[in-house]
Each structure stands twice: as structure tokens, then as C-alpha cells.
């Protein structure tokens, strides 16, 4: 197949018997790739043996879209799913083909919602061409023919031809301009829970992650980055390790020092014995308290950027009795199970990259700019990722791997960070300090709400993008677009910039702001003496979006038996939020004992993603969102001392484990008419639902995370 480059073949060869699993067909029986396969369009190859290759142009980190995206193509193509094999598209193919595959990034829960239209059209266009080719052979009109399960049938005569027989002719036809798509109500494949195409290869250990790249002559690199962000290595003394077994080279690249060896463990061990002097710059004494003061100052900032301004909030607040509360959410590390990893091979005129990357096109441009060569001279193979969580979209590790590889031309160099490097040089979920102020009317409904967000800007600090009107949309997410009927709403933003690097962490602004918004709303509901669900419903106006909030709130409340009596000591909380194009809600049931042990009796979490392409995968994403969320809610917090992160590994950055897993029930209430994401949004309503349940149980309002700082722990399930 023409998209397999020389280097890809090398890699497949080296991987030996496991090669097919990496990019070729995952569960379906392997048939040899026929040389005379036909590319009907960029997404679809049809082989004479009736097997069909569908290309997948995003990446896979466990979110499941390597299965659900091709399902949308197959649905329109009318093909037997068992004959489909999925092939990942390398980023350089997209570049070479003028980005025919569109955006390749798996970020922002947007693979399905942003590509569904062109994926479905690719499948439908190919089907239309196959039907037309058949009609020409039958000498009839295409409208008399029907495609199904890889066959085109002329119903009147009963004549049929298979896709394998038709592909050659079909590919010669002009692609249709008008491509009608199926009503999702008539789907026969999409909308069903199908097994993921890569799971069989995961459970046999065949699938290869970025860390598993193996190439002839490959060397391994371990690095030490400046413990203080922004520092630089001044002097490096490697005399203790230069002659040690397996050590190839010690390289000082300023921002980091690399040891290259024939085995990663040798490289990492040697690094400990390399003596490095760091110039910490001006941040060598910064600690958490000082950083917190920067956030505090933001609350009194006189000229914040205005994110939303309905009515005259300040006047309304001045005229009434103000309810005020401050909420804080901390810095968090991603801690993907697979640390940052990138393999780079630099030869005179060519750069090859194998990386665990969420954004292969960014990997390609980062590699080209680091090496200062044309993008056409770079090949990028995105590997299966051991988790991404937003961390593997920025390309710091790619630039490092290229910089190291350029010191040792002709040798593939696999750079892998240690867990300690990963935790101490993350791009952290920013902390956020938010002050909520509201006045309520005679029946307890808010008539004015002022939200002051004091937080860093991901777009400005990480992406170096200009901010429209000075507002970072992630920093004010779910405040700037709150659905509630509050006549006066002012949302303003005091940008905070510290030396702590920040990044997109699964669910981003929606991982923290819903905790603030929905807990504060709960405060108002309790102050008004109203049921939190009824209070929310009464605040939601009658419009399309707010009706989706109502719909998912009611679906989840019903599933959670909201309003029915609970056993003594058990209490519940509720919250709902929209994000990533989907609507979500959550109910938590908890009890808390005198030792502060929180027992979670039940979590009901629901989503309305518009269309549910692979429901069981959505179910998995909701379950996973709960674990990811609870880990952060109970324990997640990065602290800083002497300019550096204090946490270093899983012993002091605690992860939730099996024995703490509560009962989780999921609700998928897809109402249709829109396309929402599923990987991230469900984490959003969890923290506020839990916080509200804790208030119901204890009478104590939690306004900062993690819960461990409030003397609360998670009881075994």
C-alpha cells in the first residue's frame, strides 16, 4: 500500500510477528494485504478479497475513537464490519496529501463531533460510487440498486456485484458533490455497542505503545530537567559515568541533561551520578504560599477582563444583601501511566519520529522546527498511547528527543522520562481561585451573580495565543455560558502568571469551575430552603440548551431515585453542567463517619452527547471519568517549595485503587440533533455532586479541593 513508507516497513519488520497489530487490522482475521487494492477515496481501500481498510486519522489513548470514528464511515459505506481493518494514518501522509484527513489531534473530546460530517460523507460518497459502478455494469439506473453488507444488488433482476468486484470501476468515477447522509435513527452499525478494535491486541500484549518502539541500533535516553522551572544546567561533570557499561554519551542541552545508553535503566542510573550545577534563575525560592498570594491578589484586581456582562450586576449587588463565597481548586499533574516518550532518528536529510502523541501534526512541526528542516523531510508515526489526559498534545518531549538525536546522527534514540521527571515537569492543570457573590430575590432565586476568576491562562501562557478581550475561555468555562435565568451576571477574569507551567488536563476548565458554580448554587438552594433539583429546574429557562440541562438532570435524578428516602446517615447531592458539546449530570450518595471517612454508596452519572455512536465505549468513558475525578477530588494537589514541585511519584501523588472503587451507574440519554464529546465532559458534574452530598451529610460546605485537606478520606467501597 502506497502510504507505507520505507521507514514504516522497517519498523514493521523489526516488530516481527506483532507488526500487524500496530496499524493493521486489530481483531478481524488477517488477510494478506493485496497489492491490487483500490483506494476508493482517502479513507477507504477495498481489496479483491472483499476486505476493507478504513483509515483512522486521529490518535488513540483509550478514548475509543479508533473504533467509533471508523464505525461512522462503515455505517454509510454499507459494509460488513467484520471485513473492516483499521489503519492509522501517519501525520506525514496527511501533509503530503494536503491535509485530506483534516485535523489529527485527539484533544477536547472532539474526534467524533468535529469529524463526523466528513467521515460519514467519505463512507457515503464511496457507497454512491460503488452503486453507480454497479448500475453501469448492470445497465440500469443507480436508483434501482441498493448497497448492503459490501454488495450492490439490482432488486428487479436480482443481479449482484461485490464491492471487491466494483472498487476498480468505482474509483474511476467522479466523486459525488451532493452526499446525503442517513438519519441516525436508521443506523444499523453505529449506535450499537461494538467491541473496540484494539482490545484483543492489548490483552495479548501485542500492541506497541510509544515506549515499546524497538529499532535496529536504537539507543535509550534518560533526562534530568532543571528542578526549578526555567532553570538551566551550567556545569555538568560526567566523569563518574563516562566509562560505565553501556553509556554512550552525556549531553548538556541547557534546559536538560541527557544520558544516552544501550539500555534505559543504565541511562537513568548513570544520570544520578552525573554531577549537574543548575542555575535556578529568579524562581529558586518560590513556594506554594507565595503562589497563593498571586491568586489572592487577583481577587482584588481593579481591571479584570470582562467575560460576561448581563444587566447591571454591581448595582444589583450594591442594593441587596450579598451572599459571598471563595472557592479554590489546586494545581494537578496528569500522571499518565505511560510517561512522556519519543523516539527520533536523525540522518543527514531525514528525521523520523515515533511518539506517543495526541497531536501528530504538532509533533511533525515541532520536530521540523527543532531540526530546522522542511516539514516534508519529517515522518511521524503516532503510537498507541498509555494514556494522554491532555499531556501528550504539547511537544516538549518531541523537541528534546530531536535535540538529542541530532547529537548522535544515524541512530534511533528513544527518550523516555522517568516518573519523577514526568511528575515534576508536567504542564499542570492550573489552580484557580474564584469568588462568587450573589443576591437573591424574595423566593431565594439569584437576581445577580458576580464571578471573579483569578487564574492562569492556558491560551496565553502555554499556547502563546492572543486573548480576545483579555479573556481565557477555559479559565471562565461554565461561568461565561451558565444556563440559569439570572438577570444580572458579571463574569470577570484576573489573569495570573506564575513560573509554574500550565497545560490542558482532562476536562480542563470544566474539571474545576463546575465545582464552584454548582456548589455555590447548592448554597443558594439550601439558603432558600429548597430541594436542590427543584431549585435548579426552576432556574433553567425554556430554551434549547437549558432544556437539555433539564432533560439530563431529570434522567439522572430519576435513575438515582432522587426524592426517595435514603438509609439513615446517607445523603445525596446533585449537579449538572454542559461541556464539550454534551450535557451531563451526576448524583452522589454518601455517608461520613466521625473519622472523616467518606463512604460513597452510589454514583449515578449521565450524559446526553446528542448521538451515542458506541454506547459501551461511552459507558467506559463515564466510569473512567469518575475514577479520574475522584482521584483528584480526594488527593490531587501539587505543592511547591524552592521553586520546584514537591511530589515525585505515586507514593506522594496518590491514585485511587480498586478497593476504593464505588458503585457507579451510568445513564446515556442521547436526545439527538447535535454531536457532543464523551471523553471529558462527564468529569465535570462529579466534584460538585459530591461536594453537595458532603454538605447534605455534614452541614459543612467544602469550598476547596482536595478533600484530604479537610480531614476527609475515601472509605473502602
Amino acid at each position, binding site marked *: 500500500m502506497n502510504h507505507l513508507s520505507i521507514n514504516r516497513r522497517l519498523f514493521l519488520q523489526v516488530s516481527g510477528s506483532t507488526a500487524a497489530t500496530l496499524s493493521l487490522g486489530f481483531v478481524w482475521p488477517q488477510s494478506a494485504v493485496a497489492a491490487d487494492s483500490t483506494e476508493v477515496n482517502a479513507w477507504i481501500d477495498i481489496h479483491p478479497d472483499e476486505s476493507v481498510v478504513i483509515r483512522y486519522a486521529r490518535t488513540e489513548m*483509550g478514548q475509543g475513537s479508533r473504533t467509533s470514528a471508523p464505525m461512522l464511515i462503515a455505517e454509510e459505506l454499507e459494509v460488513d464490519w467484520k471485513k473492516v481493518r483499521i489503519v492509522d494514518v501517519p501525520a506525514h501522509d496527511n501533509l503530503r496529501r494536503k491535509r485530506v484527513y483534516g485535523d489529527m489531534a485527539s484533544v477536547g473530546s472532539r474526534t467524533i463531533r468535529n469529524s463526523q460530517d466528513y467521515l460519514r460523507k467519505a463512507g457515503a460518497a464511496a457507497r454512491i460510487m460503488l452503486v453507480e459502478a454497479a448500475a453501469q455494469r448492470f445497465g440500469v439506473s443507480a436508483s434501482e440498486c441498493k448497497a448492503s453488507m459490501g454488495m450492490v444488488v439490482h432488486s428487479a433482476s436480482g443481479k449482484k456485484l461485490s464491492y471487491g468486484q466494483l472498487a476498480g470501476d468505482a474509483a474511476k468515477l467522479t466523486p459525488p458533490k451532493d452526499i446525503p447522509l442517513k438519519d441516525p435513527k436508521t443506523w444499523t452499525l453505529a449506535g450499537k455497542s461494538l467491541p473496540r478494535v484494539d482490545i484483543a491486541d492489548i*490483552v495479548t*500484549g*501485542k500492541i506497541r505503545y510509544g515506549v515499546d518502539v524497538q529499532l535496529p541500533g536504537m539507543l535509550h535516553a534518560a533526562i534530568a530537567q532543571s528542578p526549578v522551572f526555567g532553570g538551566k544546567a551550567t556545569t555538568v561533570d560526567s566523569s563518574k559515568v563516562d566509562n560505565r557499561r553501556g553509556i554512550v554519551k552525556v549531553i548538556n542541552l541547557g534546559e536538560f541533561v541527557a544520558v544516552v545508553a544501550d*539500555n534505559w535503566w543504565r541511562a537513568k542510573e548513570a544520570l544520578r551520578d552525573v554531577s549537574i550545577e543548575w542555575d535556578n534563575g529568579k524562581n529558586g525560592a518560590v513556594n506554594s504560599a507565595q503562589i497563593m498570594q498571586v491568586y489572592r491578589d487577583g481577587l482584588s484586581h481593579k481591571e479584570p477582563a470582562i467575560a460576561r456582562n448581563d444587566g447591571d450586576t454591581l448595582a444589583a449587588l450594591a442594593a441587596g444583601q450579598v451572599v459571598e463565597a471563595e472557592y479554590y481548586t489546586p494545581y494537578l499533574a496528569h500522571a499518565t*501511566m505511560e510517561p512522556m516518550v519519543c523516539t527520533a532518528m536523525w540522518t543527514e536529510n531525514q528525521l523520523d519520529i515515533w511518539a506517543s502523541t495526541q497531536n501528530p501534526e504538532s509533533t511533525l512541526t515541532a520536530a521540523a522546527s527543532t531540526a530546522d528542516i522542511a516539514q516534508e523531510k519529517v515522518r511521524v508515526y503516532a503510537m498507541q*498511547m498509555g494514556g494522554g489526559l491532555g499531556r501528550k498534545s504539547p511537544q516538549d518531549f518531541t523537541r528534546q528527543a530531536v535535540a538529542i538525536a541530532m547529537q548522535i546522527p544515524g541512530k534511533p534514540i528513544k527518550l523516555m522520562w522517568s516518573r519523577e521527571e514526568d511528575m515534576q515537569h508536567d504542564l499542570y492543570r492550573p489552580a484557580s481561585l474564584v469568588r462568587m457573590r450573589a443576591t437573591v430575590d424574595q423566593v431565594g432565586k439569584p437576581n445577580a451573580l458576580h464571578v471573579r476568576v483569578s487564574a492562569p491562562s492556558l491560551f496565553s501562557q502555554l499556547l502563546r495565543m492572543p486573548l480576545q478581550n483579555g479573556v481565557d475561555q477555559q479559565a471562565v468555562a461554565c461561568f461565561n455560558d451558565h444556563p440559569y435565568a439570572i438577570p444580572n451576571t458579571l463574569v470577570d477574569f484576573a489573569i495570573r502568571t506564575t513560573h509554574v507551567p500550565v497545560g490542558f488536563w482532562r476536562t480542563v476548565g470544566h474539571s474545576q469551575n463546575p465545582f464552584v458554580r454548582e456548589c455555590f448554587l447548592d448554597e443558594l438552594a439550601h439558603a432558600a430552603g429548597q430541594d436542590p433539583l427543584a431549585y435548579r429546574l426552576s432556574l433553567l429557562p425554556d430554551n434549547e440548551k437549558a432544556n437539555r440541562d433539564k432533560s439530563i438532570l431529570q434522567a439522572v435524578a430519576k435513575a438515582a431515585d432522587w426524592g426517595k428516602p435514603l438509609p439513615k446517615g446517607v445523603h445525596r447531592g446533585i449537579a449538572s453542567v454542559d461541556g464539550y458539546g454534551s450535557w451531563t449530570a451526576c448524583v452522589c450518595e454518601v455517608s461520613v463517619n466521625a473519622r472523616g471517612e467518606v463512604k460513597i454508596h452510589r454514583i449515578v452519572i449521565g450524559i446526553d452527547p446528542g448521538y451515542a455512536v458506541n454506547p459501551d465505549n461511552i459507558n467506559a468513558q463515564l466510569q473512567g471519568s469518575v475514577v479520574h475525578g475522584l482521584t483528584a477530588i480526594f488527593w490531587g494537589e501539587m505543592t511547591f517549595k524552592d521553586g520546584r514541585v514537591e511530589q515525585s511519584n*505515586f507514593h506522594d501523588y496518590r*491514585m485511587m485503587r*480498586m478497593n476504593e472503587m464505588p458503585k457507579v451507574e451510568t445513564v446515556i440519554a442521547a436526545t439527538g440533533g447535535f454531536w457532543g464529546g464523551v471523553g471529558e465532559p462527564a468529569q465535570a458534574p462529579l466534584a460538585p455532586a459530591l461536594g453537595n452530598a458532603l454538605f447534605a451529610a455534614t452541614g459543612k460546605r467544602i469550598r476547596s479541593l482536595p478533600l484530604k485537606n479537610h480531614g476527609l478520606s475515601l472509605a473502602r467501597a
Partner: protein
Amino acid sequence: MKLHVNGKNHELDVEPEMPLLWALRDELDIKGPKYGCGIAQCGACTVLLNGEPVRSCSYPVSSADGQKVVSIEGLADKGKLHAVQQAWIDHQVPQCGYCQGGQILAAVALLKKKPKPTDQDIDAAMTHICRCGTYARIRTAIHAAARQAGGKS
């Protein structure tokens, strides 16, 4: 040094203190065991040593000299999946899958000792970290594999 891995004998000339994980991964190209923490916290590096799960990131290769190692690649018997692997597929357990080789091997060892494990048995044996949050499905799949094995005997 000799290692018997997934039914094959390997001669190794490495430092005795090299962790088993790195002998497997970087010397023998057995990539199923994964690096996750290096301090025996997460379990992604788990292999079976004479049938017992060990965290190979913190286990010196010299201690495995001459012994029988099984990694996830060696669990299936001549292409026939182990009941635990099949249960993992049936219940679509993995998300990213990075920790799952270790999880599966820990489950295999558990079922060998306790063919009908209780939830408490599972909690005690399955101490690995999964960032994707597949715990509920792991539990379901272990019970399913136990039923499957029970049905056969």
C-alpha cells in the same frame, strides 16, 4: 545468567542488580511489562515468576536467574487465550491498556489461589493503578473468568 521467559531460554550478561523489567524490555525485547513508576507502586511491570506476580521494576534480574518468567505475551497457550484474557475482551476492560498486562497477570495469579474470589479477595490482590479507571470492569471480568473456569472443572 539464564532466564526462562514465556517458554524460551535466554542467556543474559547484565549487571545482577538490573531490574528484571529492564532485562526483559531492553535486552530481550519483551515489551509487555511496562514501566510506570519504578518503585513497585503501580504494578504495570508485573510478570509471573514461578507463577507468582512480581513487580519487575523493583526485582533484580539476578533473583530471577534460572527461573520461570511469564509476561503477558506468554499467557495464551499456543494461541488459545487464557480465560482471564477472554473475560477482559468479553467485558471490554481496557481503555488505554497500558496497565492491563499487569492487571491480567495479577488476576491469573489470584484465580490460581482462589478460584472463586470474593470482592474482598479481589481488592486485596488487585492493587495496581489504572489511570483510565477500569476497576469496575476488572472486577466484573475476574468474576466472569472465575465462573468460566468453574464451569469447566
